[in-house]
């Protein structure tokens, strides 16, 4: 049974994606009989490249993706190097963890209202300090360079990388290395970067790749904070895909292939950067310099981390105020009146979607966890890892631009009569949930010290004993974090839910995005709260359960 697990995992990923990709590739080369495309040609691509500003869009996506990843990862590394093992680190961990549960769109809305020229920060100081009677005509949001969009992504990717790194930390024995490094006279940060980081990075590398793929193809954050003329490639892609002029589908499919190439290029560039970074690290560590004077950098990293967390949390707090606001005029820092109307109307409509979201997330998460653990355990027993090929398989759902591959998948489902039932929806969520669960669990699982298993075997424990009594409890923390991530991923899915569920399974996210198209900050405030409540509860459980389980086991406290 266990031996089948990797096959099941492969089937769950490869079947929907390959059919989806095929149904994207064919129209990209002009083949889509239902729309009158019966000849194979490169015309869709020619049309795509004639599109004004297309290369600007590509450059924008590439730049944003790489910049976002570099800054997010840099912040996380610096913060771990500067503060891990301190009390401030623990405090920050509690501040940052909930951020992961916040949907990207909600965080982006909150951030947008904080930093806009008519936003909350400006209202605090206007007109008294600034003299602005009307909001200044400044390009802060949707700036052509995509900086505010990058900021919106960074505040969400930092918590993700933070938690993934945290999950890998216990394997890295940071405390021991820190003592050795400081014994040799190295500064705190340098010691960490030279000794612990090289062990950590391979474990979180896949998560970093996922960040790159996500940031190069994001749609919802780009719609809220990204530039409009031109917009990043993925946004234009979705526009063409949804254009009433159905002939645009060909161009959209070609664009989806271009998006795929873009994301792959970003990954390749990143791999080159990795090599350069590793060489640089080697030069620095061999130079003999101890880098003792890192005080300023330490405080900078702590400050930047806190700023990222505070901006998002404050943004959400302000959205929460909006959800109770009457008319809230510029330049008032608080609304003139408050009302419960928005909440009452929304709660009335929300109970159905709430249940669907919960059941869908739990179903996908449980199936994913079982498949992933079974695959990993099988790998541990047989010693056969899937190799790099199976890793690339895991990347596929994270790299494929969602709209194109899902449209193809929907055709596939319709053709085979799978329809729009709950099971079909769970299976599509699984495509996205499974990789994230795998990515976040594989490395801690593999890095588990197998000498425990040897000890167990020496004491007469069977392999099942070892699994249930030793390995699983020791890895309970990472398993629960992976489960919470899987659940959060499911809650956040928009396009798969709308397309495959045909709108018959409304979730909090599909309702929120539909309402967000109406732009009312009050309603967005209500839904942002509800939308992050579920994943937040998941992460709270992931944090509290191991703590309770191991309350009397000092060495198990991470």
């Amino acid at each position, binding site marked *: 049974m266990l031996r089948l697990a990797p096959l099941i995992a492969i089937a769950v990923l490869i079947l929907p994606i390959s059919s989806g990709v095929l149904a994207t590739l064919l129209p990209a080369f002009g083949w889509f009989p239902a729309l009158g495309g019966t000849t194979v040609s490169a015309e869709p691509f020619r049309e795509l490249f004639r599109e004004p500003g297309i290369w600007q869009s590509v450059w924008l996506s590439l730049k944003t993706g790489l910049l976002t990843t570099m800054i997010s990862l840099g912040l996380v590394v610096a913060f771990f190097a500067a503060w891990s093992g301190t009390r401030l680190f623990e405090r920050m961990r509690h501040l940052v963890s909930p951020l992961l549960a916040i949907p990207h769109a909600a965080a982006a809305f909150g951030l947008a209202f904080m930093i806009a020229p008519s936003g909350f920060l400006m209202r605090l100081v206007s007109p008294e300090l600034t003299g602005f009677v009307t909001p200044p005509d400044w390009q802060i949001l949707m700036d052509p360079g995509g900086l505010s969009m990058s900021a919106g992504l960074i505040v969400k990717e930092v918590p993700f990388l933070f938690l993934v790194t945290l999950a890998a930390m216990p394997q890295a024995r940071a405390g021991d290395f820190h003592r050795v490094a400081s014994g040799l006279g190295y500064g705190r940060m340098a010691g960490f970067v030279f000794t612990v980081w090289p062990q950590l990075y391979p474990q979180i590398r896949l998560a970093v790749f996922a960040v790159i793929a996500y940031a190069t193809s994001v749609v919802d954050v780009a719609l809220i904070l990204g530039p409009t003329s031109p917009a990043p490639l993925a946004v234009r892609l979705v526009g063409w895909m949804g254009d009433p002029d*159905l002939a645009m589908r060909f161009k959209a499919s070609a664009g989806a292939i271009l998006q795929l190439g873009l994301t792959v290029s970003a990954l390749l560039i990143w791999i080159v950067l990795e090599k350069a970074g590793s060489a640089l690290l080697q030069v620095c560590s061999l130079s003999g310099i101890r880098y003792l004077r890192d005080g300023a950098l330490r405080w900078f990293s702590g400050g930047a981390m806190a700023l990222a967390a505070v901006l998002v949390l404050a943004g959400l707090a302000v959205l929460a105020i909006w959800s109770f606001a009457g*008319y809230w005029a510029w330049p008032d820092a608080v609304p003139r009146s408050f009302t419960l109307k928005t909440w009452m109307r929304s709660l009335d409509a929300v109970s159905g979607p709430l249940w669907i979201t919960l059941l869908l997330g739990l179903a996908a998460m449980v199936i994913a966890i079982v498949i992933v653990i079974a695959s990993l355990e099988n790998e541990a027993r047989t010693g056969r890892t899937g190799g790099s090929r199976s890793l690339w398989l895991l990347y596929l759902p994270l790299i494929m631009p969602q709209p194109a591959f899902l449209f193809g998948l929907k055709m596939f489902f319709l053709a085979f009569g799978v329809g729009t039932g709950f099971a079909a929806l769970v299976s599509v969520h699984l495509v996205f949930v499974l990789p994230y669960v795998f990515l976040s669990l594989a490395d801690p699982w593999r890095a588990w010290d197998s000498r425990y298993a040897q000890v167990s075997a020496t004491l007469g424990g069977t392999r099942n004993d070892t699994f249930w009594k030793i390995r699983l409890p020791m890895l309970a923390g990472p398993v629960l974090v992976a489960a919470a991530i899987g659940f959060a991923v499911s809650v956040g899915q928009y396009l798969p839910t709308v*397309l495959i569920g045909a709108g018959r399974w409304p979730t909090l996210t599909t309702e929120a995005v*539909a309402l967000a*198209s109406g732009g009312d900050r009050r309603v967005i405030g209500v839904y942002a709260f509800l939308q992050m409540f579920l994943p937040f509860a998941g992460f709270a459980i992931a944090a509290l359960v191991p703590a309770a389980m191991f309350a009397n086991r000092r060495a198990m406290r991470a």
Partner: protein
Amino acid sequence: MFRRTVIKTLAALLPAAIATSAHAVDVSDWKSVEEAARGQTVYFNAWGGAQNINDYIRWAGDEVEKRYGVKVNHVKLDDTANAVSAVVAAKAAGKDEGGEIDLIWINGENFVNMKKQGLLLTPGWADSLPNWKYVDWKNKPTITVDFTEPVEGLESPWGMAKFVFFQDTARGIEMPDSFLQLVDWTQKHPGRFTYPAPPDFIGSSFLKQALTEVVADKSVLQKPVVEGKFETVTAPLFAALDRMHPNMWRGGRTFPKNKEALRQLLADNEVDIAFAFSPAEASNAIANNELPDTVRSFVFSGGTLGNSHFVAIPYNAAAKEGALVFANFLISPEAQLKKQDPEVWGDPTVLNMDALPQDDRKAFDDLDLGVATLPPSRLGPTYNEPHASWMERLEVEWTRRYGVAN
């Protein structure tokens, strides 16, 4: 054993299923339509971005369930084109029966596309509905011609739309009375006007309004674009836009996403003018605390665009009869009255007051439309929507000129 039972059951069910979905619907035999509709669930695909409209749809659904046993499920779309895509996908996959969409809220470009692709229930059914007798198709030409495309009963009217502007009178700024005046206005008030970027529906509508005003011979817009003539016809429009853009919000380098974003800019005092395609929009926004109560509507005295919006049934709908019953209820005096109530939605009726029973007519007369809503008598002349090909060409040309502003 189990498997055999399942197959037998399926085999027994199959002919019945085919029989119910494949038989042609005869709208003239309304009794049998109502009978077949009882127990059906109608998946109504409609834009879900406004809570007041969602609430109205829920009310209407509850009513038809009570009265006709038809359950209505509102599938909330963020873009109607997604529903069109779904029908296309179904047709491509050969799913000509039991489709997942029974009714779509639609008009204009989406309708033209579905009609041309043969994605709608035929033959035309809308003018055979029992409540059609109340519909004002004689005086409201946009009910029978949707964006110059003959409707031919393939969609049933639901409401009327008129292009209106709004401003905050508390700011005491004089408003322009035509597109060209607006261009001059932006020179006096730099950074205080913008419009949603086409192909957003309202952004494109603004372009069509502007084009209709500046074009010398308006009749050319009622026919498809003639190759080679597009540049000459639209030259005055783009000359005016070239002049206006540098004086717009963010220097015309960034545009809001849609009319809701534009309305938010008005509320945040970033711009001074917003617009929409619904005369009640401003009153609604005031009622929802989205705009201050000093906001008022205005139109250009020369005229503004007007159109109608509809509901249509896809050719492969699973619950055709239920969809017909619901569409018929939507044009009942009762449903139309509630829809025009600004406390509910405020969407103007498609009905002919003279055709209504005395009581219903009085109820319409007694409606208080709201402080910021212009009564029908003050909505000014109506310009017809240009042929859909103009919008397509305008959007392409706009993107070519201004889509890459940075």
